[in-house]
């Protein structure tokens, strides 16, 4: 796992710092008013003229001291703060999207499996496949078009087109967790919570729509597999009602792969859904990372890649642990 982290950081380091003609690493530390001599000094001070592997070593040392550098384009803030201030918003979006995906995807998959090869099955298959054939930026704009613009022109209550919370409500509630909905609930401020909720629906649905299909297919496949097992025949032979056979005997087995998939999905989303966040002006980590790419900010990109890699690797471990809990046959 450590190897993966080093590998990721090495690759990003090489790409972000190895081509100073495209991305100038010292751009994060200078202002446009500086004279060439001053710029030279900055370069020397940060060691940007050294060979790459030495730069990497300096960077490692800095990181161990908690210094991730500065991001000039983001108001010159320390890179870590740029990341940390945005991360809670990504977390909120991730949780909302995961809940939606699970709430729609799993029942859809179960329905497909139970009504195998009927019209309902075909219909849900089309929904599922359409979901992951959809370009997320396209769907995002369609959602905005319909729910923000058209609803407004048709006189219906419309959903906001972007942002985390309406301008007038911003800051109305103390930021305890950094997640607007949770903070609103903690502060007991209903208007704030409702507003935050309204803001998160569209981006969450955008993300969920694309993945719920995949989840539904997995649930369907594993349900079908489970329903052909011998212990289902046994359960039926006991005279148990079909409902009990499905909910007590079949689902507990069938949902195991779905649960682990959800775990991985959650982890993947925590890395920041770049496109969705950009279209909905969601001030999360993905949004900011796009600008970091355009600015060639190696500091931010390194922090970002490492955090997301860490999350993904950690989630694999968590999923393994989940397996031990969910399936009594597995002992590690």
């Amino acid at each position: 796992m450590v190897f993966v982290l080093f590998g990721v950081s090495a690759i990003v380091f090489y790409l972000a710092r190895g081509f100073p003609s495209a991305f100038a690493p010292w751009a994060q530390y200078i202002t446009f008013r500086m004279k060439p001599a001053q710029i030279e000094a900055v370069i020397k001070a940060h060691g940007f003229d050294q060979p790459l592997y030495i730069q990497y070593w300096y960077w490692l040392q800095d990181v161990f001291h908690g210094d991730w550098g500065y991001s000039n384009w983001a108001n010159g803030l320390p890179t870590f703060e740029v990341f940390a201030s945005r991360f809670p918003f990504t977390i909120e979006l991730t949780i909302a999207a995961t809940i939606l995906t699970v709430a729609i995807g799993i029942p859809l998959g179960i329905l497909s499996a139970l009504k195998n090869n009927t019209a309902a099955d075909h219909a849900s298959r089309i929904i599922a496949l359409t979901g992951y054939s959809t370009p997320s930026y396209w769907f995002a704009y369609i959602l905005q078009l319909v729910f923000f613009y058209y609803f407004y022109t048709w006189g219906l209550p419309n959903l906001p087109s972007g942002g985390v919370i309406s301008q007038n409500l911003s800051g109305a509630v103390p930021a305890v967790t950094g997640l607007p909905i949770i903070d609103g609930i903690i502060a007991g401020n209903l208007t704030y919570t409702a507003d935050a909720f309204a803001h998160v629906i569209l981006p969450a649905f955008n993300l969920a729509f694309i993945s719920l299909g995949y989840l539904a297919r997995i649930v369907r496949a594993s349900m079908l597999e489970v329903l052909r097992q011998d212990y289902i025949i046994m359960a039926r032979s006991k005279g148990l009602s079909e409902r009990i056979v499905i909910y007590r005997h079949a689902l507990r087995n069938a949902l195991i792969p779905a649960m682990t998939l959800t775990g991985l999905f959650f982890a993947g989303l925590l890395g920041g859904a770049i496109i969705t966040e950009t279209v909905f002006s969601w001030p999360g980590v993905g949004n900011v990372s796009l600008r970091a790419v355009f600015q060639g900010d190696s500091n931010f990109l390194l922090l970002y890649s490492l955090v997301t890699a860490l999350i993904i690797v950690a989630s694999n471990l968590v999923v393994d642990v989940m397996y031990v809990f969910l399936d009594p046959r597995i002992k590690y």
Partner: protein
Amino acid sequence: MTVETTVTEVRESETKARIAELKYAIYLMRQNPLVLAGSVLVIFFVFISLTATLLVSPDAADRLIFTRSYCWSSSVFSWTSLAAVCPAGTFLPLGTDGYGRSVLDMIVLAIPLDLSIAFIIVIISTAFGMVLGSVAGWIGGKFDEAILRITDIFFAFPGLVLALVFAALFGRTIETLTIAVLLVWWPTYVRLSRGQVLVEKEKTYVEALKALGVHPSRIVLFHVIPNSIYPIIVQMSLDIGGVILTFSALMFLGFSPSPALPELGNLASDGIGHVFTAPWLIVFPGLTILVIALAFNLVGDGLRDILDPRLRR
């Protein structure tokens, strides 16, 4: 009984079995309306790709008529109150883009570009991944470990990050973008092939072939790979949709070589600033991407059901 005849017999029985399976697969395919629909769509899009230059003159992309940019011609259906109306007498069923070009024409020109890039990426990833994965799975040991770790690293990158960085770095040409997407895609096939080879390796027919003295490269190439190719075919057809989505997303985010390039994601990006004044610019190119991806996903998904040995009978 010589080695050659025994090997030939093994091959013959394999071929016979495969033909029987193929017949069964076709039987299943005919029963599945979704796969049929998907296949029809795929054929339709391939046809359009091949005849695009006959339907639309290739320089339509270069003819910029700014007087009629961002207009929608139908007076029957108006998108929004802010949309401009195209001059009368023009055949512009899907409106125009920022350069006054017919959106329909641009989409038709874009389809072959997107499809061919998607095919190239998928074929290269598959070939490369299969070679690397099969060798890793067969040889095992340290080499296998190393390949596994390297793919782990690539899998740890979320979504588009790697492709974005690469694209931002090495400039915006179609070639570099293709490589950028390849970087994201190749590990899947390595893992897939490796997994397949690991399973096949333990089977008795491989042992038999080894005992006959057949060279491992021939075993892998002519026996193991053909026997384990189904999941890879499924993955390939599903991935074509995925690659088109990724590639067009890159273009959409602003990495396209030229703003006027007829490419589906690029065409959509033209509409970003005009969501409420010219929504058709995002709607139709995006819809095209959706339908293409859906077609390939329908076929791939159907193939997966058909070729899954456990779900049959």
